[in-house]
């Protein structure tokens, strides 16, 4: 238990002292996972809406695939993104492997199904009668969509939270496609793995505390918005 105490103390000094390394690592974590979450919203919300409202052959299969994708193991994503981006792979010419771009890409693959699936659920929980009524009142397709999205905005905020929480705490894919290169692709989770494998358990604890604090702050902010607007 002395280790945990030392870790917490060291976490405090790392933060209070404005350690440049830790600051950079934290910033990179936020950049990569923020970008991945943003892109996953751009991709996942339209997809989720299309799956919720559309009627087309293969829809059931598509929904099953999305639901499976919500639990994609990050290491599997990491492996396949690596294979695609390695110089020997089909997209090797982009030279993206071991860069933050590769990490955003992998995290996007992890986050997009989460956003799609939760958007789908959010739209579907709005009663059918509501839609019928809106159409009856003469709403255009665009207006209907807008109102539905407004109705579903709180569950979709939860989707954003789930996606961000999932990717910023993910380590397998980031390690494999990013390479954990100091000052370039080292993020909080991969730095924690490294600190633990170096035997710097205090630093590992400090980084974990930092990661937890970030997740708490982001979730607290989003929850605050959610609760403020809740009826």
């Amino acid at each position: 238990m002395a280790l945990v105490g030392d870790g917490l103390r060291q976490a405090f000094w790392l933060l209070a002292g404005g350690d440049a390394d830790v600051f950079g690592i934290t910033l990179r974590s936020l950049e990569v996972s923020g970008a991945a979450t943003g892109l996953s919203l751009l991709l996942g919300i339209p997809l989720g809406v299309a799956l919720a409202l559309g009627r087309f052959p293969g829809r059931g299969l598509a929904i099953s695939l999305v639901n499976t994708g919500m639990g994609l193991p990050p290491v599997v994503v990491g492996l396949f993104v690596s294979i695609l981006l390695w110089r020997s792979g089909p997209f090797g010419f982009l030279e993206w492997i071991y860069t933050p771009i590769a990490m955003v890409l992998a995290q996007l693959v992890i986050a997009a199904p989460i956003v799609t699936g939760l958007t789908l659920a959010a739209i579907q929980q709005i009663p059918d009668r509501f839609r019928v009524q809106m159409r009856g009142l003469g709403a255009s397709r665009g207006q209907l969509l807008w109102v539905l999205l407004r109705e579903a905005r709180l569950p979709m905020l939860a989707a954003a939270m789930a996606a961000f929480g999932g990717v910023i705490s993910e380590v397998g894919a980031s390690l494999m496609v990013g390479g954990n290169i100091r000052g370039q692709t080292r993020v909080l989770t991969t730095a924690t793995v490294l600190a633990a494998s170096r035997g710097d358990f205090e630093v590992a604890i400090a980084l974990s505390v930092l990661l937890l604090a970030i997740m708490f702050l982001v979730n607290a902010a989003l929850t605050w918005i959610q609760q403020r607007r809740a009826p």
Partner: protein
Amino acid sequence: MGQPRLADRGQAGGRRGRSRARGDRTRPRWPAPAVAALVALGLGLLEGAPGQGAPDRAVILATTTSTQDSGLLDLLVPLFERRTGYPVRTVAVGTGAALRLGADGDADVVLVHAPALEREYLGTGALIDRRLVMHNDFVLAGPPADPAGIRRRPAGTAASALGQIARTGSRFVSRGDRSGTHLKEQALWKAAGVVPGGDWYLESGQGMGATLTIASEKRAYTLTDRGTYLAFRRRLELGIVLEGDPALANVYHVLRPDPVRVPRVNVAGGRALEDFLVSPAAQAAIETFGVETHGAPLFFPDAGKPEPE
């Protein structure tokens, strides 16, 4: 992701049925067979954990990624398990962490390759019974184009080669994980009179296999043990640009924690594994390991020989 209804939990009991009826669409309903299956699975795992033989207390071996990545442990560990009945749990980490796990009693045996650091732990008395197991050597691997021109000066030492890499600003990938390889690399930079840093100096913070892959993809130089290099060679665009410098020797020792300081360790199991690693059977296995797949041995058995240096 609905808000969890803690209140419903609180008023469980007699009114439980009603709160269900009020309806909480997001609450998952666990079908009884699924729950039963999960519980059975959990019990099965608990039961299956310890070995069947008489000495069933697992031996925890903390070692370096290089012995794990080369595949040597996949040969030695089952051999030991069959002979003694002790199940082995292997933790492959950097040498720094492996030594610390041993010193804290979180591992029963430590197999590492950082003589200077090992002596520090022997000095404090945290680790004891250090025995020479085997050696191989480090090599400097680099891209075929050899931008630092190391192959053109064949008589150079490892330190002078690193100096050239720094002067030409050629990319170099360091383990950066306080492993035996990393410590050796740092000693070589020191000998070269260079404090590495800058755009050309990348720190992967990962094991030898991952670091070799990164070096290959980034067209960079890296210091690697020969074993892991040979094991990975086929899928790397890296060649050996320098080898044979006596400064590149890579010596493996086995140590174990002092049971007086950390009584919870598996003393008998740890000693058995140490004895096994220097036994003729293990030494013979080490000698032939890798010859078939790589055309050359990856490690050279050293048990009983005098300490190098």
